[in-house]
């Protein structure tokens, strides 16, 4: 299914680790400004789908299209460049570089894109303000709380103004209140910038922040729009 006007679309994705297929003919599409929740039980292939969509791994077969590009035909370097410029990432934990300060962490993707240090840190500071963590800019990730850390991660994902944000269980390690706040900030910011969000989660309350959800079961994707008619 590749609806008209989709920003990122995948067809017939197949990926296996060893004998068991992690993805078995999965499909996906997302429009600009859309938040799509990817749900499903553990080990169903949610994360594998996210990694394929983001070009972190290559599927064994099938295609992933992003705008005019076909990710599945690109080299590793090209995909890396695309991830750097067009995509943002938030993971569950362990994603901040422990020896950099929070500000430097947020500025890191900008600097990887070649932005000058001063300018990168200026922009990073603005995003940190927006995510209400400006106060910890000089501290290191080991010295702040989990909620603050996750906000730093979101700020970092948003800093390059990506077109697609991939969030893999972004609130998995947070309590309800902190999780809700992070999700609100993330989805609000994404809507403001018309970015699409692929939100992998197994929690319904997290998925409720999406516009639409899909369920991955045994490597197959079920689009819940179809069931709603």
């Amino acid at each position, binding site marked *: 299914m590749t609806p008209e006007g989709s920003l990122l679309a995948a067809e017939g994705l197949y990926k296996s680790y060893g004998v068991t297929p992690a993805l078995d003919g999965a499909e996906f599409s997302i429009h600009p400004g859309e938040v799509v929740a990817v749900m499903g039980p553990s080990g169903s292939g949610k994360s594998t789908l996210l990694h394929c969509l983001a070009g972190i791994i290559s599927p064994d077969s099938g295609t992933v299209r992003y705008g005019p590009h076909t990710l599945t035909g690109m080299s590793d370097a090209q995909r890396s460049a695309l991830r750097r410029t067009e995509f943002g990432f938030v993971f569950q934990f362990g994603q901040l570089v422990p020896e950099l300060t929070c500000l430097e962490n947020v500025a890191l993707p900008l600097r990887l894109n070649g932005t000058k240090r001063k300018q990168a840190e200026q922009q990073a500071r603005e995003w940190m303000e927006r995510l209400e963590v400006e106060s910890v800019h000089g501290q290191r990730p080991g010295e702040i709380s989990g909620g603050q850390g996750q906000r730093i991660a979101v700020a970092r994902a948003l800093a390059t103004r990506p077109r697609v944000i991939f969030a893999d269980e972004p609130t998995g390690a947070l309590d309800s209140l902190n999780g809700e706040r992070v999700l609100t900030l993330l989805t609000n910011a994404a809507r403001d910038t018309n970015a699409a969000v692929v939100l992998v989660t197994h929690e*319904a309350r997290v998925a409720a922040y999406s516009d639409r959800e899909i369920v991955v079961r045994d490597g197959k994707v079920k689009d819940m729009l179809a069931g709603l008619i």
Partner: protein
Amino acid sequence: MSIGHTLLGLLESGPRHGYDLKRAFDEHFGQDRPLHYGQVYSTMSRLLKNGLVEVDGVEAGAGPERKRYAITDAGITDVAQWLARPEKPEPYLQSTLYTKIVLALLTDRDAAELLDTQRAEHLRLMRGLTERKRTGDLADQLICDHALFHLEADLRWLELTAARLDKLAEAVRT
């Protein structure tokens, strides 16, 4: 819970006497509330009137008259529509959902599809509540959160049931 739809669903696997229907119902769903004969006959007469069942035959003999009921095509369509329609998400829904799932399994319909439809409906409501939270004041947020947590609990149950569907089918069919 709709007893009419439940009895119709039970008839789908083959014509039965009223007494058999009660026994089948009790076996699957009547753990804490067995069906009265009166309920069976009054329901059947309403279904007869609506053309959803027909009398297959009458057995003469000692005791009460024994009619055999069979489901009509209109009846089958009615069951299918009922099963496919998600329930309005609300607390303590599981008895209805459970009935639907068992009937779907008994009639060889896609029970997983039924569960998916229901979870989509739940999420639709949760999405609405979340949106209200986003814009509402603290009171709104607290009220919405209460509903959200309940809905989430239902949804978890749905997921767990979906994961155990194969085992349930085995249990129901024996």
